[in-house]
């Protein structure tokens, strides 16, 4: 009887991993066991057992005895390396295009990886981060009741909540308020600067673990007049002298106070929701005494560190009790007034883990980001990488055709398929390694602009660099293997006899590239259209006539707060500069351009109206070149003008006045008088950014304080004039910093975020065009290779070069048009949304689309022409001789 055979696959598996010198005896033993199993049970069971036994031999004790193999591989690797470098050097164009395409993909992926890492690291550095909570507020949305989403969330809560938490909520161990980003004048001897002040409570240092460099952590900010600095601020004011115990002056709400430096704390890293330069006790904040008793003022954030074993249900119960105790009246009123449904809560405090606030856009922490961004970015990263990989494969395929003979000879000499596979994969890995090196370079190159776009401060420390290198290296190997394996499989399939005999027809099949090219190309066209529209719109808003003259106007803040002394300083300054020849005119205003606005609401004949209000002085109109349609300007010699107003045309239309100069604007809703007399009507001008329409507005001399000085200067010696302005300012206010800006810059700054988006868009457009060109280039290459013979025959039959050129380009024009048809409506829709941000926008017209299509087609034709021209010029004798 012939002995039964054990499963062949299992045997091959064993042969593969087992060291050759051990194979015979192991296989013998297994075979013996196999025969015995057959006798004991049946063939099927025995076969199964054989498999199982083979798999159990796959263990380090056996596999790691494969010492021999490595030596052989080393030898082969040398050869592969040599062949690979020769091959790459021979096709410099392909190699470099391929490497660049891939490196762009990898660089993008690395940058996005860095971004996501950075997002994930946010606020993770505090020691007891899982105990730190932001006590936020969930409240019924009374403004726009929405049954789908009845509640709003905000991190901004009341001052007295701090005290209530400390006294009435036993779960909270430490509690601190937090108010960031108030600008104040800080003085030490002759050093005067404007600084960001951060108000906190003493517990702040118990809650967070910002490293304390100098001073006693437990005593920082214990006294109301203590101040804590970061090292850079300490150095700025005190140089190398020890800052501890020094006294600095800080102006708060117009009054200057002395503060003693009791500590130096390291500046928070970029991945922190809390940032500060100077920390002072929250008791110093404006109107603190008053605010600390009010449950109606929502202006600070409150943070708490809980006891380790705090019960979340008890905590919520106690938080609810605070609402019950202090806001009962407000709730009753609100329920009556806004008709809050019975089953809905009015307000509820919630404890949000501090590590979550960065990714929660609703709470409104500064710098918070939607986690959606990370997801979208990750998606884009993967997509770009995928596209780069597939382009890489496509390009590799076009060159592979010319290596058939090499493969044939190798096979004839005795190369095994696995070896050929290794060889091609190896080549691909080498190329991807090169791309990886370029990619790391690109990351360094683009990181600054990437940071600018994303508003981040990602830097490459060596630890992070290591991470990046590790990620990139891993990507490069995986991509190299993946991208190399397809052409390798493709090449290995050639039958040597056929190839070497010559004259076989062959066709490269890469059906997946066509839809891919359409996608890439559609993306590029989409971006081209969007960029063109954005560019037009930005040009429109920066050059549009705003109705006032913004050139050569210097804006100087008085730095004196919102009070009488500010107006006084302005008057003194104006008088001091009266005889200056380089100064054309000086005006004061409460709100300059780009500073926001203040609005008054008033009732007229039972209708709610509102108007923007600007406090100005008599020179406001001529300094800004505003034109009066009717009436006259404020007259310094008429005391009655101090209660008069000048209105804009929109206000006249809003009120429905026939004869505005005979009217009174009763914006104070004064029941005893008619209100302010209207003495003039100014032509409409864009006082706000072009995102908003022109609203009713009035100018008055007495509604508020003048906080900004507008100085119209003569062109020419601008630096000299600025020096004069500073000298005069310093004479009047030696204890305040002199700052200035130019009005046209302030106006432009309103569009900074759009500018940033535009640069992101243009960069993406360049990337997308580059990548889609690579895809097109590859596809046209494959096409040209596949049709070599056809072209030969056509030429023999009399086709000239232009015919062939058209023949080869026709389908790409078709692809481009299809992509355009996909991209254009999407771009139109998205851009319409975007233009919706602006009250003053350009209209999207067909010319823009035609322009984009033309640009897209031109790029496509330029890209594919390389192959078309090359194929068209080949001598048909070359391609046809083999048949």
């Amino acid at each position, binding site marked *: 009887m012939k002995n039964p055979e054990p499963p062949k696959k299992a045997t091959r598996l064993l042969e593969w991993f087992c060291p050759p010198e*051990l194979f*015979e*005896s192991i296989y*013998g*033993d297994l075979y*013996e066991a196999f025969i015995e199993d057959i006798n004991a049970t049946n063939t099927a069971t025995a076969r199964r057992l054989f498999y199982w036994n083979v798999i*159990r031999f796959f263990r380090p*004790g056996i596999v790691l005895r494969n010492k021999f193999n490595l030596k052989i591989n080393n030898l082969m690797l040398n050869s592969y390396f040599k062949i690979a470098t020769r091959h790459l050097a021979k096709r410099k164009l392909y190699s470099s295009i391929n490497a660049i395409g891939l490196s762009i993909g990898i660089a993008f992926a690395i940058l996005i990886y860095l971004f996501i890492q950075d997002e994930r690291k946010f606020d993770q550095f505090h020691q007891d981060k899982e105990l730190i909570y932001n006590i936020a507020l969930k409240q019924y949305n009374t403004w726009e009741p929405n049954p789908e989403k009845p509640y709003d969330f905000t991190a901004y809560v009341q001052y007295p909540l701090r005290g209530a938490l400390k006294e009435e909520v036993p779960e909270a161990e430490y509690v601190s308020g937090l108010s960031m980003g108030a600008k104040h004048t800080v003085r030490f001897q002759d050093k005067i600067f404007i600084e960001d002040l951060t108000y906190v409570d003493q517990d702040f240092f118990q809650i967070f673990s910002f490293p304390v460099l100098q001073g006693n952590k437990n005593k920082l900010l214990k006294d109301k007049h203590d101040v804590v600095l970061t090292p850079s601020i300490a150095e700025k004011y005190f140089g190398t002298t020890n800052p501890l115990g020094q006294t600095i002056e800080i102006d708060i709400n117009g009054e200057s106070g002395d503060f003693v430096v009791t500590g130096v704390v390291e500046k928070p890293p970029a991945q922190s929701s809390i940032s500060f330069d100077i920390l002072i006790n929250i008791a110093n904040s404006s109107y603190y005494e008053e605010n600390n008793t009010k449950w109606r003022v929502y202006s600070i954030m409150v943070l708490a560190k809980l006891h380790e074993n705090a019960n979340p249900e008890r905590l919520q119960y106690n938080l609810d009790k605070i609402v019950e105790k202090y806001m009962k009246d407000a709730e009753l009123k609100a329920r009556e007034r806004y008709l809050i449904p019975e089953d809905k809560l009015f307000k509820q405090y919630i404890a949000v883990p501090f590590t979550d606030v960065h990714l929660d856009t609703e709470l409104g922490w500064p710098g918070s980001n939607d986690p959606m961004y990370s997801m979208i970015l990750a998606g884009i990263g993967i997509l770009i990488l995928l596209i780069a990989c597939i382009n890489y494969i496509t390009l590799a395929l076009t060159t592979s055709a010319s290596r058939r003979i090499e493969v044939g000879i190798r096979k004839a000499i005795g190369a095994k398929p696995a070896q050929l596979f290794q060889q091609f994969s190896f080549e691909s890995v080498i190329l991807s390694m090169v791309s990886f090196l370029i990619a790391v370079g690109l990351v360094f190159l683009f990181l600054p602009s990437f940071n600018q776009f994303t508003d981040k401060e990602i830097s490459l420390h060596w630890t992070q660099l290591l991470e990046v290198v590790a990620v990139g290296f891993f990507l490069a190997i995986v991509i190299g293997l993946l991208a190399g394996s397809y052409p390798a499989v493709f090449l290995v399939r050639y039958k040597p006899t056929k190839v070497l005999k010559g004259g076989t027809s062959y066709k490269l099949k890469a059906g997946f590239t066509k839809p891919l090219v359409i996608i890439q190309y559609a993306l590029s066209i989409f971006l081209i259209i969007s960029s063109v529209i954005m560019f037009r719109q930005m040009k429109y808003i920066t050059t549009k006539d705003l109705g006032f003259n913004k050139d050569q106007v210097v804006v100087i803040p008085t730095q004196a707060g919102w009070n009488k002394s500010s107006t006084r300083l302005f008057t003194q300054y104006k008088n001091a500069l009266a005889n200056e020849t380089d100064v054309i005119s000086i005006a004061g205003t409460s709100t300059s351009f780009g500073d926001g606005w203040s609005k008054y609401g008033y009732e007229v004949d039972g209708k709610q109206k509102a108007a923007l209000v600007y406090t100005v002085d008599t020179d406001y109109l001529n300094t800004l070149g505003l034109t009066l349609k009717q009436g006259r300007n404020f007259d310094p010699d008429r005391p009655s003008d101090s209660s008069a107003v000048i209105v804009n045309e929109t206000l006249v239309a809003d009120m429905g006045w026939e004869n505005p100069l005979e009217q009174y604007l009763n914006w104070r809703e004064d029941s005893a008088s008619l209100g302010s007399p209207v003495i003039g009507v100014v032509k409409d001008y864009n006082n706000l950014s072009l995102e908003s329409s022109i609203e009713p507005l009035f100018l008055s001399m007495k509604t508020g304080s003048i906080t900004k000085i507008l100085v119209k200067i003569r062109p020419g010696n601008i630096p000299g004039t600025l020096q004069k302005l500073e000298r005069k300012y310093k004479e009047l206010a030696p204890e305040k910093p002199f700052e200035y800006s130019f009005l046209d810059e302030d106006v432009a700054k309103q569009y900074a975020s759009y500018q940033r988006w535009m640069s992101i868009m243009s960069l993406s457009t360049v990337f997308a065009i580059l990548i889609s060109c690579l895809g097109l280039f590859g596809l046209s290459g494959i096409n040209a290779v596949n049709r070599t013979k056809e072209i030969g025959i056509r030429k023999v039959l009399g086709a000239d070069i232009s015919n062939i050129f058209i023949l080869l380009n026709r389908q790409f024009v078709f692809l481009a048009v299809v992509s355009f048809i996909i991209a254009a409506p999407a771009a139109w829709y998205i851009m319409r949304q975007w233009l919706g941000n602006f009250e003053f926008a350009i209209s999207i017209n067909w010319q823009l689309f035609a322009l984009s299509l033309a640009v897209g087609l031109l790029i496509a034709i330029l890209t594919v022409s390389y192959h078309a021209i090359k194929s068209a010029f080949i001598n048909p004798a070359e391609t046809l001789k083999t048949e």
Partner: protein
Amino acid sequence: MEKDYLGEFEELVLTVVGVLHDDAYGNAIVKEIKDQLDREVNLSAVHVTLYRLEDKGLVKSHMGGASEKRGGRRKRIFTITNAGLSILHDMQARRIKLWKLLPQIKFTS
């Protein structure tokens, strides 16, 4: 004087190699352990242990005869070396010495 520590399984396999004398190969060892000790061991574990013992110089191997029962493959026959024997002796001696130190427990009724 012991250079290497022998694990329980290593000692078992080494002993069985000695017991089987000139007929010790993978399957024979598995079978012997099952017959003598009624213990199921895995063939691959035995192989790995044999190679390890060979690395330590406690056994040596040569290729033996082929048989049809093995599909024409030869056996790798392991024999115990002098070092292997001495380590077994040594371990046995120590164990007896230790055993003698164990207080004699009397079984009382």
